[in-house]
C-alpha cells in the first residue's frame, strides 16, 4: 500500500487532501447555516433548541461529527504544514524588491493567514456553544430541550464576541473566495465549459454563506 502514502505525501497529493477536505467543509457550512437560520424564528428559540437537541443526539449526526473532526483536522494540519514547506521552498534570501501584488490577489496569497484567523474563531466558537452544550448542564426550555438559544442570547450581548464573529466571517469570506474555485482546479476540474460557472458559484456561495453567518451576531446584538 505504499503507493497510497506516496500519493498523498506528494505535493499534488497533499493539495488534493486540502481540496477534498475544503469542499467537504463547505458542505458542512451549508448544513450549519440552514440549521442556524432558525435563530431568526420569532419563537424565542423553540425551533432552534429542538434542532440543536436533534444535532446533539441523533446517532447519524454524531457519526458524521467524527468525519467532520477528521475533515477539519486534515485541512488544518496539511494547510499549516504546506504553508511552512512552501515558505521554506523560497529559501532564506527573499527578494529585496518584490511586486507580487501586481500579478496575484492578496487573498489568494494569504490563505494560511486567513485560515489561521478562521481557526482562532473556530476555537472560540466551539468554546462558546459546542463546549457548553456537550460538556456542561445547560438549563432546559419549556419543551424540555437544552436551551441553546439562551447561550446565543448571552454570548452576543458582548460586543467583543460580536466583533470577533464578524471578523471571523470576513476572514472566511476571503478564504472561500479563493478556496472554492481553487479546490476544483486542484482536482483537475478546470475547463472553459464549466470553470466560469464554478467561479461564479464560488463567489456567490462565499458571499451568501458568510453574510448570513455574520448577520446572526449583529441581529442578536442590536435587535434582541
Amino acid at each position, binding site marked *: 500500500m505504499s503507493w497510497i502514502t506516496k500519493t498523498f505525501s506528494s505535493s499534488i497529493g497533499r493539495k*488534493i487532501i486540502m481540496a477534498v477536505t475544503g469542499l467537504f467543509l463547505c458542505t458542512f457550512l451549508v448544513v450549519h447555516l440552514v440549521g442556524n437560520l432558525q435563530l431568526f424564528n420569532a419563537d424565542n428559540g423553540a425551533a432552534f433548541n429542538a434542532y440543536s437537541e436533534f444535532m446533539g443526539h441523533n446517532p447519524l449526526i454524531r457519526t458524521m461529527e467524527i468525519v467532520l473532526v477528521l475533515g477539519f483536522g486534515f485541512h488544518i494540519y496539511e494547510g499549516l504544514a504546506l504553508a511552512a514547506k512552501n515558505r521554506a521552498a523560497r529559501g532564506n534570501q527573499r527578494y529585496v*524588491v518584490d*511586486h507580487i501584488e501586481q500579478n*496575484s490577489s492578496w487573498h489568494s496569497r494569504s490563505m494560511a493567514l486567513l485560515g489561521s484567523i478562521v481557526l482562532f474563531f473556530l476555537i472560540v466558537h466551539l468554546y462558546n456553544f459546542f463546549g457548553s452544550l456537550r460538556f456542561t448542564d445547560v438549563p432546559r426550555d419549556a419543551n424540555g430541550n437544552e436551551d441553546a438559544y439562551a447561550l446565543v442570547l448571552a454570548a452576543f450581548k458582548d460586543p467583543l464576541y460580536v466583533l470577533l464573529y464578524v471578523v471571523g466571517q470576513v476572514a472566511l469570506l476571503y478564504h472561500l473566495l479563493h478556496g472554492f474555485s481553487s479546490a476544483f482546479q486542484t482536482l*483537475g476540474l478546470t475547463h*472553459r465549459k464549466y470553470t466560469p460557472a464554478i467561479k461564479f458559484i464560488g463567489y456567490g456561495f462565499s458571499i451568501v454563506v458568510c453574510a448570513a453567518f455574520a448577520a446572526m451576531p449583529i441581529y442578536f446584538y442590536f435587535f434582541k
Partner: protein
Amino acid sequence: MAGSNPNAKPMNLTLKVWRQKNRNAQGGIVDYQVKDISPDMSFLEMLDVLNEDLLRQGEEPVAFDHDCREGICGSCNLFINGRAHGPEPGTTTCQLHMRKFNDGDTITIEPWRANAFPVNKDLSVDRSAFDRIIQAGGYISVNTGGTPDANEIPIPKDIADRAFEAATCIACGACVASCKNASAMLFVSAKVSQLALLPQGHVERKSRVENMVAQMDKEGFGACTNIGSCAAECPVGISLENIAILNREFLSAKATSNNLA
C-alpha cells in the same frame, strides 16, 4: 509597444544589482551608475554597457545568463524591479527594452530566488533541477529507422494546437521565480500536458507524470496554491489550465498505473 524613436534621449540610470561571489558566499546589493543608455537598447545590452564600464575600471563584471537574445532559449533570467523578466507582460529580459524605463530611474536587479535554483554567481542561477525533472520523464520513446510518413498518426487540429501551446514553454523558470511558494508546477504541467495530449506521448504517459512529480518534489520546489503569479509572468503565456491537466494526469496515473512502489 512603442516603436524606435530617433529623438529619444539617452538615459542615466541607477542600478541596484545583486552581487555574490559564489554559491556559498554571502551576497548583497551593490549600486552602480550607467550613463548614456539608448532607449533602443535591450535590457541585456544595457548590462553589457555596465560590464564594459566595470572592466575598464578593473572591476569584476556582473555575471548574468544569456544566450540567444531573441526570447527562445530561456536563459536571461533576471528579477527586475520586483517582477520576473521585468514589468512587461509576455517578454523575456532580452525582449525588454530600455524605452520602458525613464531617465533617472533606479532599477533593482536580482537573481531568481528558490531553494531549488541556487545562485552560482551574481545574477546567474543553477536551473539544472529543471533538467533533472525532464530526465525523469519529459521524453518519448520512438523507433529509430526510416523516416515515418508525415501525418501518419492523425491528430485533431485542436489537440495539436493545445499541445503546441504547452510546448512553447522555454523552461526559463519565471514561474518558479514569481511563485511565492517557488513551485515548479507550471513548468512541469506544460511538459506533462504537451506529451499527454499527443499519441506519441502515450507510451510513458503514466510513468512520466509519476516520475516527473516525484523529481519535482525531490528538488525542493513548493506546492501550487493556485495564486496565478506564474501564468501572469510567463513570457510565453502557458496557462493555469495545464496545472489542472497535470493534477488530473497525476491522479489518474496513481489510480491506474501498475507501479505499486
